[in-house]
């Protein structure tokens, strides 16, 4: 009966109850979005680096190398010689070395030249291959292409489709003459490589030799054997952790290239961005505290607004415990409803942000419930219920006769 009274009281004042729920929901949603975004971005970036134990690339900014190789963003620092790749392939500390070449795009989607061994690359032993086929097969000869899940979907590419690549990293560059044929489509990897178009590295070399010849006004006669081949980056999988460290030390002597741990670069990037993030978090906390105060006031006002009903209950013989139960039930109902709507709204907003981030940056933020949300739910609910305690005490102590 007490719960029925509480529920009916809330329904009897829909505007007041609705506004309270709205304020609670808005506060919780904001809290959820800030927390999800912070956790999701961090986890999304780290996850994207998981397939890349070590990356070798031209000397320069490690951040740029990670952005280019892992996230398929920014322009490459430069190329490294094929010799370095060959030496790494033969190094006993290395389990696999996979060459990567960038420089072309198809309608803005990065074309990644590589070896077919990229499809057998297992980031972690026993966890399966990184790139798995949804349809078709691996490329076997130049100018065959395997398209990432998102690229295939957004470009509308199917097996057997043909396309021509363009020079550079943004749409609108010079189109190469060679025609690629789609022979495979990948399953989603929930990472930047969903937007990649993988082709044999030889295709990149051939296309660029011709491009360079054309640019010089010469007749386009190819002889790939005579041209010095380069790679943009090398994805290196060491045999183990100690091998990775030894390899890293060995590579410090190399003058024409650098070797990096992408995960370490991301962590460093976070520590650089940490101060800015900390400031944003501080601002968010201030907003959240204000939101919680408004939420508490709203629940308090809502409870005070029902003073007459409580006086009637007292007059009917309701005990202090009855009044407490009714007020706390009202506060709890308002708060729980607000918290549930807030969490759902927060996840909704976050999912939209995930989509925006995915399309703008190719970084797939992790989604799903995170442990911090449990604290938000418990904390928010307790805070709202506690806010209802004050009017509960005041109502019990007040002179009920004047409201009757």
């Amino acid at each position, binding site marked *: *009966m*007490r719960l*029925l*009274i509480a529920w*009916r*009281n809330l*329904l*009897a004042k829909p505007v007041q109850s609705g506004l309270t729920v709205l304020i609670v929901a808005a506060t919780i949603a904001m809290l959820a979005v800030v927390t999800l975004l912070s956790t999701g971005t961090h986890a999304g970036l780290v996850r994207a680096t998981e397939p890349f134990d070590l990356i070798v690339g031209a000397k320069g900014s490690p951040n740029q190398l990670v952005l280019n190789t892992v996230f398929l963003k920014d322009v490459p620092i430069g190329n490294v010689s094929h010799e370095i790749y060959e030496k790494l392939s033969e190094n006993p500390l290395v389990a696999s070395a996979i060459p990567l070449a960038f420089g072309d795009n198809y309608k803005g989607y990065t074309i990644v030249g590589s070896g077919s061994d990229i499809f057998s690359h297992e980031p972690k032993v026993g966890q399966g291959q990184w790139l798995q086929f949804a349809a078709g097969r691996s490329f076997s000869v130049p100018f065959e292409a395997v398209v990432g899940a998102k690229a295939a979907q957004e470009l509308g590419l199917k097996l057997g489709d043909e396309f021509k690549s363009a020079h550079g990293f943004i749409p609108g560059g010079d189109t190469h003459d060679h025609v690629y044929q789609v022979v495979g489509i990948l399953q989603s990897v929930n990472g930047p490589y969903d937007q990649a178009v993988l082709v044999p590295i030889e295709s990149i070399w051939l296309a660029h030799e011709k491009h360079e010849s054309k640019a010089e006004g010469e007749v386009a006669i190819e002889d790939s054997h005579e041209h010095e081949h380069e790679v943009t980056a090398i994805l290196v999988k060491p045999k183990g952790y100690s091998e990775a460290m030894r390899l890293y030390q060995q590579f410090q002597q190399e003058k024409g290239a650098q070797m990096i741990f992408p995960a370490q670069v991301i962590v460093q990037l976070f520590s650089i961005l940490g101060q800015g993030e900390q400031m944003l978090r501080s601002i968010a906390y201030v907003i959240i505290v204000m939101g919680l105060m408004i939420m508490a006031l709203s629940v308090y006002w809502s409870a005070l607004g029902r003073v007459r*009903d409580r*006086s*009637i*209950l*007292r*007059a*009917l*013989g*309701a*005990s*202090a415990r*009855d009044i407490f139960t009714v007020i706390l039930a009202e506060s709890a109902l308002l708060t729980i409803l607000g918290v549930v709507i807030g969490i759902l709204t927060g996840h909704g907003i976050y999912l939209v942000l995930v989509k925006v981030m995915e399309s703008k940056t190719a970084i797939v933020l992790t989604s799903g419930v995170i442990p911090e949300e449990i604290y938000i739910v418990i904390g928010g609910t307790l805070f709202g219920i506690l806010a209802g305690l004050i009017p509960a005490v005041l109502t019990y102590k007040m*002179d*009920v*006769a004047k409201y*009757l």
Partner: protein
Amino acid sequence: MDGDEKMLELNQVRKEYRDVLQTITAVAVEHLMMQTGEQIALVGPSGSGKTTLLHLISGLLTPTAGEIKFNGIVLSSMPETWRDTWRAKAVGYIFQKLNLLSSLTALENLLVAMSFANVIPKKEQRQWASQLLDQVGLSDKLGKFPHQLSMGEQQRVAAARAVINKPSLILADEPTASLDQDNGLLVLDMLRQFAKESGSTLVVSTHDRQIMNQFERICSLRKPSEEVIGSATSNRLA
């Protein structure tokens, strides 16, 4: 009815409200005694303290001075929680403003009053409430909210709520004030009949001569005057 049984006794009861400048005496009663089953009309001009006196008798207010005894127990000496329980079980109160809970239906208004008293076994509560509403001619309005009922119907719900726990003391504050004559008499008859059948004491405050004439005992209150702090007022019950 046991006419010799003393149920309610008020001695030197005063209720005062103080502010910075003055003390306002809302009601003052030298002595008043009611016996079990007695039916009394409490009369007096507007502002004479009828409502305050009923609040004092019901334990909703505590007197500034004096004592109110119910079956020999001084109400103000009871802990508040006991007084709440006593009010739920022993007192049925029809307020001047009716005070039905607007968010609950007619039936639920009765069930709420029963839930605090627990006099009627839980299994029988719904049936008893329906039966009582049927007796006051509201069998087809059980699920209606107060705003969906006429003033007369609301008054009947309030009357049914006042007697739902079979209280030994029924207080009715101007129960016919907002009703036409027919409805007023209907509610009054219902209260008197119920009190008679259950042996309850009935106190009805009114300024309606036609109503007061129906009672064998009439107690009249004089309008108390406002006094400066420290002065005394004497407001006797006739």
